[in-house]
Structures are given as C-alpha cells and as structure tokens.
C-alpha cells in the first residue's frame, strides 16, 4: 500500500528543505509527489527552485583538480607487505629506501618523463631511456601521451578514457601531459578517436616504433 504522508511541518519549509534532492532526483516517490504538488501551487517556492537549480548546476560544474596517486599507494602497499613478511619487524635502518631517496627517484622519473615528452613532440627522436628507467616493478608501461584542454572536466576525461579502454599510467608532467596505456592492438584507432575529442589537445604514441 502506498504511503502518502501529509506535510508534518510548514509545507514551504519542507519543500525548501527537500528541494536539493528534488533537483538531483534523489527523493522517495511520495516525498517527490508531495513537494511537486506544493510547487505547482506556490509561486514563491517555484521561484526559489529556479534559483536553486542554477546553484546546483554551478556546484556540479565546478572544476576541482585532482591528481593521480596510485604510485604512492603502491609504494605504501609494498612497504606494508615487506613489514608483514619480516619477523620481527625490521628497524628503520633496514628500510630499503628513505623518503628522501624515494622523492629523488620520483623527481628523476618525472624529469625523464618530461624530457621524453619534449623529445617525442618536438624532435621525434628515439626515447629508449624512458623504458630503462621508467619501468617500475609490476607497473603498467605507458605507450601513449595525452594532453587535455585546460578546461576539460574530470568527468568528461574519465568517461573518454573508460569508453576507449585506456588507463592513466602517470602524470601530470610539468607540461600537464599524462601517460596512457592503450592495448597495443587498438592503439592507432584509439589515438585517432582520442584526438577527435574536443577535450583533447594532443594524443601521440610514446615509443619509437610508432614514430617510424
């Protein structure tokens, strides 16, 4: 049996309280019916709803930048696994890397990556050093590079990458480029599709074979 509950408080107040979730479609059916019935009869609340929709749209559109942190998480898991496998727990001296060393390695990797990108884009020279130094254990190797428009939305980027079965491997670099892994067989058509997207400034293969 459908439960139709009457307003238990001031209908204007309840309508205004529930308005945000009416906009996002997250009200229960009976709540929605009650609120919509009130809105149909109340001009003040309808005006308020129009303003609220605008606010909701602006908040949802706010571009808030995010980074990619899987490498840091992977380090942490490795550290935890090492600590769990040593009995007794190793003293700090036995740690394989200090934070400073890790920082230096990451910085060196980032610098090499930036250099590799520059070479690929401007000189089209072989970039073998990237493969030697950029290959972390068990990490997926990147085979393409992409630059998004500065105003591209995270949700669009995410959707685009998912739709093309592409994964982010590294970045952003100093030039705001990201390294991608694309299944080898589909790389050329995938890059063509990425390039044709309005959010993409540049999408290029990242190894020498593809440049020939």
């Amino acid at each position, binding site marked *: 049996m459908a439960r139709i509950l009457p307003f238990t408080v001031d209908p204007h107040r309840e309508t*205004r*309280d*529930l308005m*945000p*979730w009416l*906009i*996002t*479609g*997250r*009200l229960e059916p009976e709540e929605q019916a009650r609120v919509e019935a009130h809105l149909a009869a109340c001009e003040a609340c309808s005006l308020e709803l*129009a*303003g*609220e929709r*605008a*606010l*909701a749209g*602006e*908040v*949802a*559109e*706010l*571009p*808030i*930048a*995010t*980074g*990619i*942190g*899987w490498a*840091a*998480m*992977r380090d*942490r*898991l490795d550290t*935890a696994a090492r600590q769990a496998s040593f009995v007794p727990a190793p003293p700090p001296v036995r740690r394989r890397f200090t934070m400073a060393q890790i920082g230096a390695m990451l910085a060196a990797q980032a610098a090499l990556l930036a250099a590799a990108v520059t070479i690929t884009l401007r000189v089209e020279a072989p970039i073998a050093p990237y493969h030697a130094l950029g290959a972390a254990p068990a990490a997926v190797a990147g085979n393409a590079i992409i630059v998004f428009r*500065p*105003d591209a939305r*995270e949700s669009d980027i*995410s959707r685009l990458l998912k739709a093309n079965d592409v*994964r*982010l491997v590294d970045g952003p670099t100093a030039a705001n480029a990201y390294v991608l892994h694309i299944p080898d067989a589909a790389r050329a058509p995938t890059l063509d599709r990425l390039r044709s997207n309005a959010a993409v400034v540049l999408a290029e293969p990242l190894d020498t074979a593809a440049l020939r």
Partner: protein
Amino acid sequence: MSDGSVAHRQTAEIGNAATPEDLRLFAGVCARELDAFEALYRLYHPRLARFLLNLLHRPQMVEEVLNDTLFVVWERSDTFRGASKLSTWIFAIAYRKAMKALRRLDEPVEDREADARPSDGDAPDAPFGRHRTQEALLAALAKLSPDHRTVVDLTYFHEMGYREIAAIMDCPVDTVKTRMFHARRHLRRLMDGELADWL
C-alpha cells in the same frame, strides 16, 4: 576462503543498490587481488579527491587522507558488511579521516584563508575559475564550514540522497537537511551579485 564468501554475500545483499563494477572489484579486493584494488582505487580516486579537496581545502592533505582511506579499504575489507552501499562506506571512511586530519592541525576547523580569499586578485583557485561565477562560488564555498561544504558537494556533485549523506557523516537526516538549508542560504547570499546572471 572466507574472504571470497564475504564478498559474495555482500554482492548478493546489496543487489542493485550499488554499481556492479565497484562491487565486482571489491570482491577481488576481499580476495587480496592487487589488480582489483588498483582498478577500484582508480575508480574512486577522482570522486574522493574532489570530495576531500572540497572538504579540506588543503591540496597537500588530500593525497594523504585519500590514500589513508583506500588503505583502510584494502586492509579492512572484511569490516564492510553490506549494510550500506559500498560508496557510502568508503565516503564515510574518507569523511572520518578528513575530519581527524583537520583536528590534528590544531587550528579552528573554519578555513583561515576564507576572509582573505575573495579579495585576492589571483587566489590559488584562480586557474580553476573559467568564469567569474565559478570563482565567486569557490570563494563562497570556502567561507562555509567543512560540514556545510560537505553536504553541498555530496548533494550536488556526487548526487547522493540525504539518507546516504547522513550515513556518511554519521548524523541524523534532519541535521543534513538543516545543514544544506543553511549552506544554500549562505551561498546564495554570498553569490547575490551573480544570481542575476544565472536566472
């Protein structure tokens, strides 16, 4: 192995209450599959990063809290009982971790930069502001308390219902509605000059 059966039970209990993809990956996490965890990490990272950046307003803390959160997901996957959506459970962990990190700062929870931000010609947020309205909105959001910002962001960006938000913030549903009401009133008052452009 009990891990697998836990994941199976969770999947069965939650049914269509969560997207199949994150539950499928979580089943792998319960079975200690690193690939599944990496995929789950990548799936949640953008949403959590946005949520935490909005809540904390300190980019340098976001990565730490985010990784703390997902580390708990990996280490304590057995504590997810399927009573809520997986996303609710993960966001609740993130919220608790973020509030704890804010308390550790030993400073008022309110954003100290809030007063200075709107008058700065080039605030740190400036690159995000495609339009004047967005810049004004970011400044207005910065003036809200973290709790109010959280409710606004979970409602309008993450599109969560008030019951789910109450579960994440561990508070009564009426508190969520009240926080949202006050947050909207503050935002619209602070955005007064911009409203004409919207309507």
